[in-house]
Each structure stands twice: as C-alpha cells, then as structure tokens.
C-alpha cells in the first residue's frame, strides 16, 4: 500500500503553488479578459531577483520582499506598455501573442543574466518531514493570500472599483472610477501574487524553464475552476496538485501530463466554463 498521506501532503504543497499562479491568472483575466501567458516569466524574473538578494544577504525575507516589489513594477509596466495599446483593438489574439512574446523575452533575459544552469534556491523553513515547516509555510501563505485577495475584491471600495472596471469599463468610468488605473492595479496585484508563487515554486532549483510546467498546471487549475472564479481556481489548484501527485506515485510520472489533460477534458465536456465559472457569455 503506497504512502498516500505523504503523496497527499506533497501534492498539497505543489497544488498551493498552482493555486497561487492560477489566482494571478484569474485576477488579470477578470480585470482585462486577457490570459497572461507572460505570467511565469514575470514570476521567474522576480524569483531570480529574490535569488540574487538571497545570495547577497544570506537571508530569505528581504529577497521575498524584493520579488514582490519587482512583481508590482513589472505588472504595471506590462499593462501600461504592452496591454493598454491593445485594449481598443478588440482582438482576442493580440494580447495572447504579445504576452507570449514577453514570455520569450523575459525567459531569455533571465538566461542571459543568470545562465541556464540551475541555481539552488532555499526554502523559507526546514523542509524535512511529512508536514515540514516549509510545506506548511507554502500552503498557509497561499491560503492567507487567497483569502486576502478575496476580501479585497469582495469587501473593500477598491475591490468594488476593480470589479466594476473589469465588468463594465464604460459604465465604471461614468461613475467616477478611474478605469485605466484600476486595470493597472489589477495587473500589479496579479503580478505580486505571481511573484509570490514564483518564489514559493522556485525551491529547490531555479532555472529559466522551471516555471513552465507550473504555469501549465496553474492554467489547467484556472480553467477547471472557472477562469473568472478565484475560489474555483484555488480549489482547482489544490485538487490538481493532489491528484497529480497520486497519479505520479500510483501510476507513473510519465502519466502526469496526460492525467492533467484527461481531467481538463472531462471537466470541460461537462461544464464548458469550468466547474465554478459563470456561463454568462460576455462579448468585449
């Protein structure tokens, strides 16, 4: 009998990271109806910055802080310089390609600066044990951050503005909401959450492609959960993490990607907008 508890705990930790990166995708999708394919690269840059700060200071927390700040700056720049010019275009494909281009550029820049060699990236706490402090930190952080994001959206004036700007930018403007600023804030918020996900996902080894698979599973989680539903996405991330850990342990690691595909096909054939997504088709 395989050690299901250990598999579940390992899966939960992976799932937390999928959930966090998925949440970043959802925030941006809700704000601008764009799936941000550059998300893993933005997070990667932040993780590498954290790595550099860690190396210089020998600590963990300053690096994390730098990563979060860098995430905010990168998110704002991306929205202002690359996404905003496309807003009036009404072309679904343009932002996809622009964010893909950004993904390539940022990954390449990371490779140029930090090389393709894997760099060891520390855990926040001791990583040993089935319920290691490091794993608990990852899971708790993600749950707390997700809760904070939900609270921000649901119960604060800023959250109301963000939602209004995302849902009906024209109307929101007429109500005194600075729509452009809200979209930027949405990207900033998402990039900060993404940077956190990057730092949490980086250990033990950081390399330019390390977040690619994390991103694929994060997107899978978001699609399963419903791209405009943060709660669904977070649940989707955790469930996917545990499920894939079981698949790897019980059936074989080569089946993990196929299993993710199977779950996705199953869910989408039953519910084309994910388990918790709203089926209100909104043409933008």
């Amino acid at each position, binding site marked *: 009998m395989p050690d299901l508890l250990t598999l579940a705990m390992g899966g939960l930790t992976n799932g937390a990271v999928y959930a966090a990166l998925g949440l970043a995708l959802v925030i941006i999708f809700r704000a601008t109806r764009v799936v941000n394919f550059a998300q893993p690269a933005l997070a990667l840059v932040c993780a590498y910055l954290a790595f550099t700060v860690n190396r210089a200071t020998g600590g963990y927390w300053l690096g994390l802080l730098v990563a979060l700040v860098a995430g905010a700056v990168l998110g704002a720049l991306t929205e202002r310089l690359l996404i905003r010019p496309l807003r009036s275009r009404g072309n679904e494909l343009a932002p996809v390609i622009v964010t893909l281009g950004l993904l390539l550029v940022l990954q390449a820049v990371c490779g140029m600066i930090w090389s393709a060699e894997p760099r060891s990236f520390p855990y926040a706490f001791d990583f*040993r044990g089935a319920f290691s402090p490091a794993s608990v930190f990852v899971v708790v952080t993600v749950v707390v951050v997700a809760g904070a994001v939900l609270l921000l959206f649901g119960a604060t004036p800023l959250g109301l503005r963000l939602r209004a700007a995302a849902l009906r930018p024209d109307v929101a403007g007429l109500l005194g909401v600075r729509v452009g600023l809200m979209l930027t804030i949405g990207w900033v918020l998402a990039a900060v959450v993404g940077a956190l996900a990057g730092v949490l996902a980086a250990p033990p080894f950081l390399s330019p492609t390390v977040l690619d698979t994390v991103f694929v599973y994060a997107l899978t989680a978001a699609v399963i959960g419903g791209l405009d539903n943060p709660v669904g996405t977070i649940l989707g991330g955790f469930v996917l993490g545990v499920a894939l850990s079981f698949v790897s342990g019980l059936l074989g*690691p080569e089946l993990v990607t196929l299993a993710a595909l199977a779950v996705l096909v199953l869910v989408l054939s039953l519910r084309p907008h994910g388990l918790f997504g709203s089926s209100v088709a909104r043409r933008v």
Partner: protein
Amino acid sequence: MRILALGVVAVLLAGCGGAGESGDSAAGVRNETAGVTDTSVLIGTHQPLTGPAAPGYATISKGAQAVYSYVNDGGGIHGRKIDYRVEDDGYNPTRTVEVVKKLVLQDKVFALVGGLGTPTHSKVVDFLTAEGVPDVLVSSGALAWDDPQGSPMTFGFQVDYTREAKILGTHIAEAMPGRKVGVLHQNDDVGRDGMAGLDRVIKDAIVSRQPYDPANADVLPQLTALRQSGAEVVVCECVPAFTALAILTAARLGYKPQFVVSSIGADVTTLTGLLADFGKRAGAEVSVPALLSGMVGAGYLPDVDSDDPWTTLFKEIHAKYIPDVALTDTVVFGMAQAYTFAQALKEAGRDLTRSKLLAAFESGKLEGPGMTPFAFSGESHAGYTGAYVFTVDSEVRTNVVREPMVTDRGDGPVTPAPSSRKTPAEVALVG
C-alpha cells in the same frame, strides 16, 4: 528547362518504391578533405545551449572551446587551427537534424565532434553515415554508437550506461552484500541501459524500480515508493539535477538510503553547488556534507580534486581561458573530449583526410585523459570501457574506493583496468 519539366513531372508522379525500402547505398567516406585547409580544420557539434537539457550540459562546449583555444595558441595540430562551431539544438531532435544538416551541407565541417544526447544524436547518425562524415566522441552513454558495420562513421566517447552499471553493481554486491536495492532511473535509455547492467550483476537484490520524467521535477512520489519498498541502497541513474533532487527529497522524507550514483549524475562539484544553499539558510540545518557524505559514485575521467597530471593541465587551461566558468566534471568532460579529438587529429597525420581520422580512431593508439582505455578498434567503436568507484567523505572530498575497472556490455567479467596511461607530457599534443 528540361530538368525543370522533368522535376515537375517527377514530383507529380511521386514515388513508386516504398518509403522505407532503402537501396543499399555503399556507405563510406566522402569528400575526404571537406573543412580542411592548410591552416585550419573546421569541426562542428550540436549542443543543448538552451531548452530543457541546457542546465548541466551547456558548459560542455565551453570546456571544449577552451582546449581548442589552448591548442590553437600552441600553433594548432600540424599547423592547423581548430575552428569549433557549436550549434544550439535545444535538445529538440528536429532542430538537431536541421543544424547537423547545416553543419555538413552548408558549413562543410570536417567532422562532427561530441554531438550531445541520445534522442537528438540518434536522428543524425544515418545521415552522417550516408554523407560520409566522421561522427566521433558522441556525448551520450547509449549503446547505439558502437556499431562499426551499420554506422562506420560513428564513435562513442563516454563509458556506456550498461558497462558502468555493471561496475557499480559489482561494487554493491561486494561492499554492501545482502542489502535491498532500489533504482531511481530516468525513463529513457539512460535508465534502461543502466538497469540492464545492474540486472547482469545484482538482479535479485533489486526491490523497486522507480522511473522519473525529466520534465517533472517532483520526485517525492518516487522516493516515497523507494522508502516503502525497504530499499537500503538507492542506485541513481540520473542527471545531476535529479541526483540532487533525489537526495533533497530523501532528506525531506527522513529517508536515509545509501545513494549510489552513475557517472552522469555524480558530479560532486555540481552537486555541491546545487545543494550548498540548503546548509546556510533559513533554519534548515542541512549542510552539504550531511547530504553528500557517504554517497557512492562512478567516474571515468580524472577527478577535479585529484592531483592527476591531466587535472593539473585542465586546471591551467581553465584558469587561462574560462576562469568565469566553474570547473565541474561537466567542463572537464568537454575538455577531455576536445583533447581526445585533438590527439586523433595529430595521429591522423599532416595530410589530413576523413579516412585518416577514422583510421586514427581505429588504431587504438588514443590514450587520453580518461582513467580507462577506449575500446576503439576495427571491431568496436565503443568509448571508455570502464570506470572507477568513489565515495564522498565528510569534507565532501572524493576518495577512490575501487580502482578503475573495465568490462564489456555483455556478460563478461569486471576486471581491473590496465594501470598505465599516458600523461599529457607523453602525449605532447602541442609545442
């Protein structure tokens, strides 16, 4: 115009014969002196400089280039400078075929040296054979390179995974008798060929075989299964990153097996670099010595820590040409490979041709930086024939526990390697 019309008609009537039936084209060297001038020789290679295999392998060509620069600064081989062209294939077989075709058809390289990877290089062997281009010192321990009849242009370099696993298996059988053995292996020929070697020696002791997928960095499920199988010894047929992941994951599970690592994943310098940060940081008192000490590994090139004369030479070259790159086993790999090739060029003589280069390899006169002899002869194109076994001590230094051994890839015995090998001074490549 006639040939144009002929072409159009031929295309439209495309193909009468079967696509898979290849006519028996007489394989043999063609364009004897392609890439050769009086003052230079152009060689090429395909390497994963980007993409999934770049971590760990992107520095091989840096080491090789350093040796070629050293040779060229010493006047070259028979007055010829070696022009080394590295093409990035991203570990993508399609691109491998494209860049190798470019090297052969457009750049017209004299030889392909050290093309890296089994999935990649296996796709160009037939092409190189058909084009009559020497394809030497392939950077992979697969068995396929040793096929003098089918692929007369191709020569291996590193010890193949099966030979090496036989030697490691022998060490386990003798040094750890009666212990239960688990295997963590990459789910490709690295793992399959390695397990074939283990099975020749310690099949009955193996209690669990866990594959890992290089695209999936989470090996917790695999280590969990190994722990549950009761394996006291874990043989790692892995690349360095996954050796490190396995060691860390075992520590995470509180699982303390005896790790036995094949040469491709036992680069202690690289492992130390990867694991260094877990000692210093954030409360986790997991020092590199605690993680690595006791690890058993295999090697076939001189150890970076040793005072072997070859190591001394490589350190000099490293310090002069690539001081910014950490001197790992991977870099030494590239250096040894380049040195071996330069040696073959010298052996081939002043009037360089492709046939003479192949003859130089088959002459059996190449004795290189490696700790065991090459198998090169008319009958065998296999590279190094064996390996030594080392352990890592509590100061993360390597200690040889089993002097170089040689064996074959079949059921032959494991025997001590001949103790004599040439020193750099005896080879006297330049100057």
